[in-house]
């Protein structure tokens, strides 16, 4: 790793190719030659795909959308690390200058039972939507936008809520977790709403519903390794998991049915 001095580099790729969810996959080797060091990782894959299409081959399927690190679409594991080796970086924001000429790069899809592979590097993350659907929102009718200072929010709470709200739902936490657990994702969603007055009123029902859904969907259990938080492209803090542990216990005691 490190900054390359050349403006283009030649790479060898080992990419996971899988036709569909039902078929088994395997690694295929590709040469990625003459790649600009200014290109992003996704642009590098675009170049490789253009050549594959020209040669009449099936291009590598991968998810992407905004390409500016905020949509959470790009999902792949690069050399064993979700979103590649750089901290606080989504795959689309990872630049080829971080690699050296002649490097071999292994590219795999996110691995978790709750994220089945659709094709190649593209995985089905519908399970995240299902978790959100059971409580990741504020359902009270808030009417018109309230006066700016009507609901005071302490700075400490606002900062923590903002850290949690930065979650783009990419699933890197699940991919990084040896147990395929979604605790950081759920913790971020629960925390972001529970820390603010608009979401606080429903926080007990929310944490129970979202955690139970996570478990039902086949995500694993948290063993506090912290791998999720370091893999997170948005630096969501591990504190979100711990806060949720606390909230869950309290909500379990308080629930009336």
């Amino acid at each position, binding site marked *: 790793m490190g900054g390359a001095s050349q403006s283009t580099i030649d790479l060898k790729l*080992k990419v*996971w190719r899988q036709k569909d969810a039902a078929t088994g996959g395997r*690694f295929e080797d590709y040469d990625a030659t003459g790649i600009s060091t200014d290109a992003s990782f996704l642009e590098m894959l675009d170049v490789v795909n253009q050549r594959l299409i020209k040669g009449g081959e099936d291009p590598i399927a991968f998810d992407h959308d905004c390409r500016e690190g905020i949509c959470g679409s790009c999902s792949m*594991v690069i*050399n*064993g*690390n*979700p979103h590649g*080796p750089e*901290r606080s970086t989504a795959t689309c924001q990872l630049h080829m200058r971080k690699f050296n000429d002649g490097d071999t790069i*292994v590219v*795999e899809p996110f*691995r*978790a*039972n*709750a994220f089945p592979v659709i094709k190649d590097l593209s995985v089905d993350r519908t399970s995240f939507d299902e978790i959100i659907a059971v409580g990741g929102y504020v359902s009270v009718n808030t009417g018109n936008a309230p006066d700016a200072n009507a609901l005071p929010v302490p700075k400490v709470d606002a900062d923590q809520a903002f850290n949690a709200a930065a979650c783009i739902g990419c699933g890197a936490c699940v991919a*990084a*977790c*040896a*147990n*395929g*657990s979604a605790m950081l994702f759920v913790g971020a969603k629960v925390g972001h709403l529970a820390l603010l007055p608009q979401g606080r009123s429903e926080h007990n029902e929310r944490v*129970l519903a979202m*955690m*139970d859904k*996570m*478990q039902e969907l*086949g*995500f*694993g*259990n*948290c*063993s*506090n*390794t*912290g*791998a999720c938080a*370091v*893999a997170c492209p948005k630096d969501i803090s*591990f*504190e979100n*998991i*711990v*806060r*949720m*542990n*606390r*909230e*869950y*216990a309290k909500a*379990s005691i308080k629930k009336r049915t």
Partner: protein
Amino acid sequence: MNYLKSSIGRKQLMGLTGLIWSGFVLSHMLGNLLIFAGSDAYNKYSYALTSNPLLYLAEAGLVVTLLAHVFYGLKLKFENVEARQTRYAMPTNGEKAARFQSKWMAFHGSLILVFIIYHLITFKYGPGVEAGYVTTVDGVQMRDLHRLIVDVFQSPAYVFGYVLCMIGVGFHLSHGFYSAFASLGFYHPKYSDWLSKLGYVYAVVVAAGFISQPLYVYLFAEAR
């Protein structure tokens, strides 16, 4: 969902039972250090413990918490294996890798369980007064546990195995201590780093304390 069926509920039970055992291993280790105070002090301490009827209550508590810890630990482990069946071709590495010991909790946990059973057979249910391991301290006749320890730790294989298992205890505590607090909901940006370091210190102190006894006996004490 029932709290004890929930992922977080089970983790919290793991944390709570783990903390109880963390306290127990520290007190057990401190008791073992009496080996340095001589055979009379060692046997008197052992006698004071075993002759106290409250010991049964403490033992029952330890057995129940251990069984719960093992049962839910294995259950969670099996669920976790189920949740991530495909491994990556390359392991997570560099800055994004998890602490090594945190990924092997079930492994050193199992090692410790086997050790505990073997340990109880050797010492607690091992030869006692009727087998001739008897001594008199301050006019009271009691089991000569000190002599049994000295006899057992004459075997280099036993000492090696014991030391290895105590290193396992150290690894287990180095993640478990901090992890228990996290599962139970304790996190504070000011104290959590400190707590994580305390977990390492705790692990090293407990493991080193336990290891000191067999090494001291093997190297310096002579069988009678």
